[in-house]
């Protein structure tokens, strides 16, 4: 569904990503793992068209989107939930959701996912249901994290790029977030997740790509990663 070939990216003249190739299949949850600064977030931003200097091919549903504007990429069904959340602080929860709203869309085979409404999202994130009129700036980190995901889902994406959903939120919320991801997977959504937390990733992911200093250095199933203590020690543990 999403296939990335030889993706490279630069900040100014500093190269961050080195020829990354990977793919995400329909209905799959794939984790990009690696330590701080490995290039996980940059990879996701690059796919979304948010990094100016980039090279390589990104195909989504067979179409090359690597030269597209972010809004065009979003309109093809790629949702982006940034790690720093980027909630609109002066807008209420409902207004934040409204900004993310896009028309329902279909998979290439004509099948559709059920369209997201605020009501369905409130069922998924009960905390948000209690504060539809609260300003983004008055929310806790965990609540903002949920709102970020909910706002992205309002765009009815086919695949969600989820950047570090477990970062900086309370353990209870992390658990809730894991359940949400499993729930979304059941609905037929594909997810590319960036994650440092092995325990979180193993709960939700099917496959794993491991990054280190912008290079792809390991790939395989989640089970294989859990068995391979060497890889975990080399690239993931602090």
């Amino acid at each position, binding site marked *: 569904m999403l296939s990335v070939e030889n993706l490279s990216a630069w900040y*100014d003249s500093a190269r961050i990503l080195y020829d990354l190739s990977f793919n995400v299949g329909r209905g799959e949850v794939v984790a990009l793992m690696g330590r701080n600064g490995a290039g996980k977030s940059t990879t996701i931003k690059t796919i*979304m068209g*948010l990094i100016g200097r980039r090279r390589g091919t990104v195909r989504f549903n067979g179409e090359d989107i690597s030269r597209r*504007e*972010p*809004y065009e990429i*979003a*309109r093809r069904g790629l949702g*982006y939930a*940034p790690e720093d959340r*980027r909630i*609109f*602080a*002066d*807008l209420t929860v409902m*207004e*934040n959701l*409204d*900004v*993310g*709203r*896009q028309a329902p869309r279909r998979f290439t085979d004509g099948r559709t996912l059920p369209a997201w409404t605020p009501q369905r999202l409130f069922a998924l994130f009960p905390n948000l249901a209690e504060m539809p009129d609260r300003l983004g*700036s008055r929310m806790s980190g965990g609540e903002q994290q949920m709102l970020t995901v909910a*706002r*992205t889902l309002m*765009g009815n994406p086919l695949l969600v790029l989820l950047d570090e959903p477990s970062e900086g939120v309370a353990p209870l919320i992390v658990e809730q977030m894991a359940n949400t991801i499993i729930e979304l997977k059941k609905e037929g959504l594909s997810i590319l997740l960036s994650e440092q937390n092995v325990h979180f990733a193993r709960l939700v992911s099917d496959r794993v790509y491991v990054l280190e200093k912008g290079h792809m250095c390991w790939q395989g199933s989640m089970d294989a990663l859990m068995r391979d203590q060497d890889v975990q020690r080399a690239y993931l543990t602090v």
Partner: protein
Amino acid sequence: MTLSAFFFLILNGLSSASALFFVAVGLSLIFGVSRIINLAHGSFYMLGTYIAYSCATRVGGAFGFWGGILVTALIVGALGALIEIVLLRRIYRAPELFQLLATFALVLVFSDATLYLWGPEDLLGPRAPGLRGAVEILGRHLPSYDLFLAILGPLLLLVLHVTLVRTRFGRLIRAATQDREMVGALGVNQALLFTAVFALGAALAGFGGALQVAREPASLSTDLIAITDAFVVVVVGGMGSITGAYLAAVIIAEVKALCIGLGVVHVGLLSVNFSKFTLVAEFLVMAVVLIVRPFGLLGRMQAAVRTIAEPEDPIRPATPLLKVLGLITLIALACLPLLAHSFPYALILGIDVLIAVIFAASLHFIAGPGGMHSFGHAAYFGLGAYGAALLVKWLALPMGAALLVAPLVALLGALLFGWFSVRLSGIYLAMLTLAFAQIVWAVVFQWEELTGGSNGVIGIWPPPPFDQAWVYFLLCLVLAVIAVLVLRRVLFSPLGYAMRAGRDSELRAEAIGIDVKRVHWLAFVIAGAVCGVAGGLFTFAKGSISPEVIHLNHSIDGLIMVLLGGIQTLTGPIVGASLFAVLQDMVMRDSEYWRALLGGIILLLVLAFPQGIVGALARLFDRARAP
């Protein structure tokens, strides 16, 4: 004053408040979303009056008048959209001040386009069909059109408020104000949104201008007046708050109305002519508000807004090549007096250029490395110039002493104004510096007994041997070289590092023990004093001085010089000032439409060299050296 007279005054002020609000609210919307300080907004307003005048007089009747006002809004809105697509879209990633330069070029172009299309005379439109009469209120007659305007302002506020809160378009505008990139990543076509907002803002300005057609004549000078008023209103109300904008418009209009209404008031032996305060009223209000509430009446401290501008490269000490180039230039300049006989004008132009260089270098010092975008740098130029001129005129001081005192006068002004200014940042700082400059201007303009008012001070000529152009030129050269070297030296001293650290991250700089406000205050004072030198030299070069040198136009000239050269380089202001002085001299003398020409040249430069001339050269040079 009776109570009824007072009430009448207030009501009258409300109709002026509506006019202020119309032009300010569009500016606020545009700034909120695009972060562009659109100086051409006042031109939209001016064009609105002219277009509505043509509709009302050519078509005539109620249809020509009222229909014309709506058509005008549409035309100006379309013009706004066109400008956004053709020009602004290319410079969203450019530094903030550079965008300002581009929009100022538009001001020049529109000004001359209007001159070409409608001629230089003020044009008085017809009175509003259906609203020609007056309403009797408390025994006085209020023109019904004024009453209509007074009601229209709050009505527009209501409509806009509902639009921003209740519609998706409004929510997108508010979201984009905070994080436009994220709005794009959520599938919103930002380009379209920006164009729409720009068109809406322009249409509102055009609409406001068109409504004025029945009250005031269409005049070529409205563009700068309108933009200054609009900025004051937006800043006093709080950037991005439309309710704040209306509130500010009401306060400012009422203060002005009261000043006129009060007239001359006798308090004991003192008699104060309040109507003289109208020129400064709005700036006094702004200065007070910004000092008490740094983000305006209803503004809030901006949650960190994501900018998409490219980060700046750090400035570097001069390379050997640059030093050699500088030395060659210097030697060439020192030889210029040899041309005195064959080409005497070269020296006059040379003096202008050198004064411009000092002016621009001192402005660059705070605007570039200091990050304080002063819109009122002409104040310190004027303080220096008037300081020197008045000392010669009233105390018959010799030139040497006057030139020494000039920077001191400017320094005192900078000491006072700088203390307030460095407490603010960004657009608020820009507007406060502008307010101070306008206050200085108004004082000089109206204190005729001391300053000669609009006539200025004349007959301030340098004594021999400086009355010969080549000697005076060399004096200017020496002082310019000293000024530039001193500023450079400071930038590479600990103070300069602290200044740049404070610009790049105030919090981090304070965390390592830098008193950012104090450092910036000191920088502000240094820049003011150096600028005073330029002012002093200017007085003796021209032999006279008038309030124009303190006017906003002169402050903007300074910014253009800095930006032309490139704000991120140290050589930039020198090159920019030289080019600007020469351009102004050559273009202004040869054409009636010099503004449009100058504007056109600036636009070309903006589109061709988004980093300024020196910035572009540096980039070219880097690329040539890189493997």
